[in-house]
């Protein structure tokens, strides 16, 4: 049974159609990538799947639950890294993780907080409010908050953004380990080279339409990499004049 099932999802904002009849499935243990140019509808799709916004049409199932009707239950079971790194302004990184653990009722919270503070080198900012952290540090806080309860299913919207190359590498290794453990990850990203190494299956969105739903294997078997396929499908701006 798929852990995520999206069936003819449509999202409209007035007369603007952000998503138009999108359908796909994510199987358990799948590392699933979602790509597309700016404004293609990736974040909107992720928000619908995580119960943050309601679709205009179609249905969606996450871990057997309808995110529109049971968003709290869905959020209990998943981890989310949002597109904007916005931890609460007046808590320190450690306090925010305590807050998250308390809301999620995480056992051995102190141990886990120490682990993630250490993993992302957040300990050096102990006592600094999140509003005073750099963008990269705030992204590390949001990543820690999404990983701390070890969810079975993760939704990551641009997780590498604002991270320096060292932490991009460290995060990539962590995600590879998750993939090997068989955990399910839904990833939205613009970094196609890294995504190709991580993902089993991908979709490409363009102006709210599904331009591709394929496995990485199927793409590479045609002698293409993800970036080439992406540019061929949605990158008409790069097409050479005939």
């Amino acid at each position, binding site marked *: 049974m798929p852990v995520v099932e999206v069936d003819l999802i449509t999202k409209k904002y007035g007369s603007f159609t952000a998503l138009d009849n999108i359908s796909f499935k994510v199987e358990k243990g799948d590392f699933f990538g979602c790509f597309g140019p700016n404004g293609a509808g990736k974040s909107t799709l992720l928000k619908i799947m995580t119960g943050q916004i309601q679709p205009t049409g179609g249905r969606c199932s996450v871990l057997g639950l309808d995110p529109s009707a049971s968003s709290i239950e869905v959020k209990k079971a998943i981890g989310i*890294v949002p597109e*904007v790194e916005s*931890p*609460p302004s007046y808590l320190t990184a450690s*306090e925010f993780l305590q807050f998250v653990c308390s809301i999620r009722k995480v056992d051995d919270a102190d141990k886990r907080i120490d682990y993630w503070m250490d993993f992302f080198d957040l300990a050096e900012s102990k006592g600094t409010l999140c*509003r005073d952290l750099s963008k990269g540090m705030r992204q590390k806080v949001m990543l820690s908050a*999404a990983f701390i309860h070890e969810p079975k299913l993760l939704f990551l919207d641009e997780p590498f953004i604002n991270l320096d190359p060292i932490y991009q590498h460290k995060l990539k290794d962590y995600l590879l380990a998750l993939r090997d453990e068989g955990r399910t990850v839904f990833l939205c990203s613009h970094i196609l080279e890294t995504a190709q190494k991580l993902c089993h299956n991908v979709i490409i969105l363009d102006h709210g339409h599904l331009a591709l739903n394929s496995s990485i294997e199927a793409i590479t078997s045609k002698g293409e990499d993800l970036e080439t396929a992406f540019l061929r499908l949605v990158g008409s701006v790069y097409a050479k004049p005939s």
Partner: protein
Amino acid sequence: MPSLLKLMMLEEYRLHVSHSSRRMFMAMPIYVFVLTFFFAGSFPNLQTGMPLSDMLTLALGGVFIYGVSVGAFGFMGHTDIERRYGKVNLIIAMPFLLPLSFRSTFFGMYLRDTIFYTILILGPAFCGVLLASVFAHYALISCLMLFSSMFLAFLFGISLSFAISVLYTRSSAAFGVAVAAFGALMAGFGIFHAYPLGYIIPPIGLELSSTPFMHDPGAVLLYLTVSVIAVILFTTFAVLMVKQEYESTKSQYVEVFSRYKLMTKFAGSYQTLLAKEFVDIIRSGMLKKIGFAYVAPLLFLSFTTWYVNNGLKIPVGFNSVFYAGMVGFFGVMLYSWLTNIDLTDYFETLPVNVPSVIKAKLIAFFILTSIISTIFVLGISVLNNEMRLLWLALPVLYITGAYMVLATAYLTGLSTNSFLFDPNIMMKFTAMALVPDFGITMLSLSIDSSPLISAAGIGVVLVFVSAFSWYFYRGLERKWARQAFT
């Protein structure tokens, strides 16, 4: 500056429209116009209970307080700047990126709100009074004079608030001195009645020196000049005091969240959210803001009430019970601030819904206001020698306070500031607020002449108000459960 101001006006307009609709936003002046028309038209009838001069003093005092609440740009600007990395990215933060000064953006904010509120509220209110004058036969010159006084009272409030709030960004000690000085001036008027209220708020002196109250062109000219000079001085001072560099101080903080969580155990399932609310309240400096813009208006109301009763010797019967009912109104402002301390986007990543966060804020609200409001009602009872009425005043305070904030939370959720600009919501809010408050006010006026009937009547109102409070509380889940935080 004109092009910057134009953009800031457009930004403010779009911000408000994004929370309702263009049509609803445009209906706001019509709503104000209609409301003022009916109020102004009923002035002659109301005069049997209270002289026109006192009604206008209270109205101008109200406009002044409104200006004070609008003009705390020192606090608001700072908040907006700090949010530049959030979803709300406002022009006021542009000096970080563009060759603009914070002085110009803060001054733009001041001009923007002055124009905005004049067009949206004061202008339509004046038109309402003008139309009412046709039926109630007010002299045109009196209407023009009233509008001038109201406009100046608003400017006086907004510029004073601008100056004092900017002072806070420079020195909290200087800010404390300024607030204490204002409190002392109010005490000089209220307790010692050493001078008239017009000496502290010159536009009130301006109104009371002109027709139909007096015909003293010299006093009118003097009050007008003082008002204009004060507005110019406060504004100039505020603009000059705006910091040229807004760098976060990056202070180091002792971790307190787990300690606060232990202290909020009584809140049950809201323990974690409430602990976070209190960390936010303390670290955001909101307590100082409460001191300035919550306690100061309460002080003003206390002294005015006391002065009308004892200074003017007008037997209008303002008493602790009436006052307790009034305090509930100020609570709405405090709830609005609680919803505006920080962005709430991160809640989208957690298994928490909007009603839970609203309820945590309501608990924080009750803890904060029950202490402050009780002190004020006790104070006003001592000042008016009405300790005998406390048995009724305190339940009125708690029940009406709870009713007002629950009605506000039910109607506006976590976007109180924005939704109160939606005329549809504003109309519902006015109806919900005015009906019980009118009942309590009327009944409280006869507490000394017919204590039994008055207390029984107030008791009935409180029972209804409690029932509605319960309805609003239960309705929070139904109304806001599917609402997104972003």
